[in-house]
């Protein structure tokens, strides 16, 4: 049966080449946009590259404190991480890292603005940076407050050109750091920066006493199964923090989130809710994708209706020989899906080219997104959804044709 549908689909599509080309263009453009977005989302939220262990860790980005008249939302202070989170029993490692901050680097006669993070030693153990030369800071470096730095590849090239970078000195904010390592450029949420220095190199030790500040925490379990336990334990820890703070707050909220949860909570401001809203966000993304598919799908519906009506006599013959309405709908939807799958294949090629262009054009710093098996699978699913969306209405209309009129070709 499928072979029969396939043969017919190929013949029909080849018979009207211009029409098929317009259909394909419609599908390919839709697929490229959706697949590029999907590839970026996949690279952002799935365990890949430097955040390859992200299925094992959670992050805490903000602490929200509430009193009668005031709600205070801020990144964490180092004290919260060092005094409370590090003592949690369910975690294997806890990392503290500041959010990326713009700093000026004075080198010879030039000034460069780069993004800096200050991190502890665990940060380098949780994230999986690809080291290009030298080494990353050790526990001893952090403990001793050594002025050492790791830079990424682009920064190394920008500041030092082609010279060997490890061992060079770099000056920023009145401090001088010795570069001990160079890592590959990364854009990931927890990793993005141009330079990393130990957290203990802060000019003042005041940060150690702060409940709020500019820190993010990363809590890694032994396995993904530990994450619910970490979340549960965190609820008790938060109560303790609320009780210990010198300023009185009625409530304190702090959530350990996966990358998607973290992103959703930020967008939807679910600061006081355990539910990050990621399900709503995903539903929104799916709705947006369907909406994006709707316009080209409507165009295809229109084109398909014309194509199907041209085949009225065939429909009449099939009905006469026992095709039910349902079987005819199935046939025409499958034909449309076949076209969409072909479009998806062409779309994947163009998506690959677009991703290469996006990576090279540096529109988004350090963006490196490639097609993966998952994106390929999403493409397959998107093509089928698109095929059904644009095929089912004309197919249903066609299946309702009166067989006698259809045989006369008078649909």
């Amino acid at each position: 049966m499928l072979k029969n549908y396939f043969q017919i689909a190929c013949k029909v599509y080849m018979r009207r080449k211009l029409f098929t080309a317009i259909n394909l263009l419609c599908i390919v453009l839709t697929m490229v946009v959706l697949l590029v977005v999907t590839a970026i989302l996949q690279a952002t939220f799935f365990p890949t590259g430097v955040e390859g262990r992200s299925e094992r860790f959670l992050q805490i980005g903000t602490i929200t404190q509430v009193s009668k008249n005031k709600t205070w939302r801020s990144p964490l202070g180092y004290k919260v991480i060092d005094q409370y989170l590090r003592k949690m029993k369910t975690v294997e490692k806890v990392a503290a890292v500041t959010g990326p901050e713009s700093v000026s680097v004075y080198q010879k006669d030039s000034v460069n603005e780069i993004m800096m993070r200050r991190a502890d030693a665990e940060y380098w153990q949780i994230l999986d940076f690809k080291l290009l030369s030298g080494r990353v800071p050790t526990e001893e470096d952090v403990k001793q407050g050594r002025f050492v730095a790791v830079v990424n590849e682009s920064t190394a090239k920008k500041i030092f050109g082609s010279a060997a970078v490890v061992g060079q000195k770099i000056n920023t904010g009145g401090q001088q750091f010795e570069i001990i390592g160079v890592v590959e450029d990364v854009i990931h949420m927890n990793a993005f920066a141009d330079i990393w220095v130990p957290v203990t190199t802060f000019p003042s030790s005041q940060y150690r006493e702060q409940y709020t500040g500019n820190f993010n925490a990363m809590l890694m379990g032994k396995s993904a199964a530990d994450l619910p336990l970490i979340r549960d334990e965190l609820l008790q820890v938060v109560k303790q923090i609320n009780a210990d703070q010198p300023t009185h707050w009625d409530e304190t909220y702090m959530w350990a989130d996966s990358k998607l949860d973290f992103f959703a909570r930020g967008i939807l401001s679910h600061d006081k809710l355990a539910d990050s809203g990621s399900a709503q966000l995903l539903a929104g993304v799916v709705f947006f994708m369907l909406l994006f598919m709707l316009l080209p799908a409507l165009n295809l519906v229109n084109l398909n209706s014309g194509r199907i009506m041209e085949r009225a006599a065939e429909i009449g013959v099939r009905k006469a020989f026992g095709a039910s309405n349902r079987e005819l709908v199935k046939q025409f939807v499958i034909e449309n899906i076949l076209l969409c799958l072909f479009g998806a294949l062409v779309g994947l090629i163009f998506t690959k080219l677009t991703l290469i262009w996006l990576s090279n054009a540096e529109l988004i710093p350090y963006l490196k997104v490639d097609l993966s098996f998952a994106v390929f699978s999403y493409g397959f699913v998107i093509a089928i959804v698109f095929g059904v969306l644009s095929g089912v209405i004309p197919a249903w209309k066609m299946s309702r044709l009166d067989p006698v009129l259809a045989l006369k070709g008078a649909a």
Partner: protein
Amino acid sequence: MIKLENVSKTYQTDKVETLALRDINLHVKKGEFVSIMGPSGCGKSTLLNLIGLLDRPGKGKIAVDGAEMKVWRDKELASMRNRTFGFIFQSFHLINDLRVIDNVELPLLYRSCSAKERRRLAEEALARVGLSARMDHYPNQLSGGQQQRVAIARAMVGRPSVLLADEPTGNLDSQMGAEVMDILLKLSHEGTTVVMVTHDERQAKQGGRIVRVFDGQLVA
């Protein structure tokens, strides 16, 4: 085999109501060869479409194989058409995008039948109409007579009990028409019920019983 009782059919257009058939009573017995004759526009094809369950009557009853059609649901109608009837049309209605063999297999797609079995039955049907050598051709590579023979092979491949032929020789020259008639007569002799609409008195007489329609009514 097929029984029509007081069947009427009316076509309704915007303002005009046209009575196509009025109080038709017809009984076609198993194995019979019935020819329906009458002037153009008298309702012959409408009658054939009603018999083949392609159309539904405005009034009256239709019974096939002793079972009265009461529920005109698409799924049941499709299944009944597939199992009971084989259609032969004046303009062949072959699907030009499919090879001859695939055209003949068409009715078998809508029943439980393996690809191998479909192929075997289609080859057998084509052999019976003398077109084994043409199975990989496309319909537009065949003559009119050959195309109608393919259409007959398609109509009989599912071994239906009734063949419904709407002017099967209407688009053919006399020699090709005779060849097609020979095949239909042979099928009839083997026990298949044949109902044929024709304008050709001679062919109608070859079949046996003649039913005449005039202004939507059966006449003696």
